[in-house]
């Protein structure tokens, strides 16, 4: 029997597989498909203080081995999530929940975290400072170490729950940003968010997405995500949730070997709604092949040996 459990900043997940924010809603759609209790956790849709309608259509484009989304953080707002989603989550999932939290100001980030303080089931706050699809006056908070540090500081004092900063790949030096978050007391990091990309519609000769740019995700980005997880693992002591292009037990294992303690699966859920279930079912055999009894032994394994 392989032990699939992993621990992230004191929170134990029964296995490392976590559906990524924005690809799993608040769990409702997937609860109709399989028993969510097989999951290590899930990261809910990025939630802001106020409801957001998101970007105009079209919001989705395809690319080779990947997709672009420009959803623009559509969500019902924190109050509606507390009122309507949290009680429903308690019914469909009984493990620890990761709350993906977004904001357009330091105050909003902090307030959103405070509002979740009494939400028992929320065990980790995943603070998204890297959404490429909202133009909050230029760059997002995750694109330089100072603003990343500022958000970390703001949320760190607002909550007692473990805080994981979610970093994006559209930066020159992700390790520098990771160190800035660590210095301000982050409990962990999640990476990567989507790569900024675009497509042009040859029929209209205009950008295909109404938002012009969108976030690239899916297997296409896996090597980039893996490299960033490696770099950040070398740079900080914090637990890392690896994310980006994972679509199989094998790619999940690569992520862990690069330094991830748990692995988020995003776009793969959209192509195959049962993707996380399949990955989880494949993990024990893969661990045997890799000769590990505790999957957590994979974490960072490629750095030494």
């Amino acid at each position, binding site marked *: 029997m392989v032990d699939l459990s992993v621990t992230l900043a004191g929170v134990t997940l029964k296995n490392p597989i976590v559906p990524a924010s*924005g*690809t*799993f*809603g608040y769990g*409702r*759609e*997937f609860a*109709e*498909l399989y028993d969510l209790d097989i999951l290590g956790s899930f990261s809910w*849709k990025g939630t802001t203080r106020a409801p957001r*309608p*998101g970007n105009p*259509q*079209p*919001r*989705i*484009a*395809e*690319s*080779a*081995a*990947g*997709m672009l*989304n420009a*959803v623009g953080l*559509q969500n019902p707002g924190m109050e509606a999530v507390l009122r309507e989603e949290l009680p429903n989550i308690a019914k469909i999932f009984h493990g620890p929940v990761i709350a993906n939290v977004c904001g357009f100001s330091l105050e909003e980030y902090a307030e959103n975290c405070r509002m979740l303080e009494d939400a028992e089931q929320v065990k980790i706050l995943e603070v998204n400072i890297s959404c490429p699809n909202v133009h909050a006056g230029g760059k997002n908070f995750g694109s330089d170490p100072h603003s990343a540090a500022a958000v970390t500081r703001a949320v760190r004092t607002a909550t007692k729950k473990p805080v994981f900063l979610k970093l994006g790949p559209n930066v020159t030096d992700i390790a520098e940003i990771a160190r800035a978050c660590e210095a301000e007391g982050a409990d962990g990091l999640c990476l990567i968010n989507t790569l900024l990309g675009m497509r042009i519609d040859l029929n209209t000769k205009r950008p295909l997405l109404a938002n012009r740019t969108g976030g690239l995700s*899916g*297997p296409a980005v896996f090597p980039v995500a893996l490299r960033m997880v490696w770099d950040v693992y070398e740079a900080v002591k914090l637990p890392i949730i690896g994310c980006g292009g994972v679509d199989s037990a094998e790619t999940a294992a690569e992520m862990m070997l690069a330094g991830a303690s748990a692995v988020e699966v995003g*776009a793969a*859920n*959209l*192509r*195959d*709604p*049962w993707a996380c279930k399949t990955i989880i079912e494949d993990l024990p055999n893969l661990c045997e092949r890799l000769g590990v009894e505790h999957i957590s032994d994979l974490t960072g394994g490629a750095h030494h040996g």
Partner: protein
Amino acid sequence: MTKSAFTLEQARQLTGDVWELTLAGDTSAVTAPGQFVNLELPGKFLRRPISVCDWDEGRLLLLVKEAGAGTRQLVRLPAGTELDTLSGLGNGFDLSAVPENAVLTGGGIGIAPLYGLAKRMIAAGRRPRAVLGFRSKADAFYREEFAALGLEVHIATEDGSLGTRGFVTDVLKTLPEGQYVLACGPTPMLKAVHALPQLSGGQFSFEARMACGFGACVGCTIQTKQGPRRVCKDGPVFQKEDIVW
């Protein structure tokens, strides 16, 4: 929703760019006309949403227009190809409150779901009429199939090569007030139909670029009077009253 393999039995070319595909497989998840399936294609990351044109216990009929690389590939797959398919997606047309003689209004490939719809309405003893729009006579398809169901069919073509010259709206405009439409077609058509003074009510089937097709990603959301709604899960069919352009 189910996920299962459908086997391509036959692909029949109807016009220069429209094909009729027959797929065999488990159709149990299809419960209403206007629903769709989401087909995985070799080498494509996203699935392709295609309306169910008609179905029985073991077969799906799809009408597919070559619109890009994926549909071009799809209609040319060899018979026997297995297609990983999400089936029974979306809410179809709601027939509970539809008047006796609703007007099925379709433009181009948008007529696909109206065929299965007409068939079921007629089977239920209703008397729908159909207004179908095409670019030209050469682009028209499924005329005999609709006629064979035994309903009144009006055709409009943009160049007048068949039926009324103009758009479906040019036919609908000639009808008295108080019409109820069940419409599917390109967005400009839906918008023009929606704006007709003749309409007392109706249901409109929307298209949107989709990532998942089952409600998870909110990629397909449109704004409605009820707030943001997902075309794939809350639609693709929306009530006239709820639609915002």
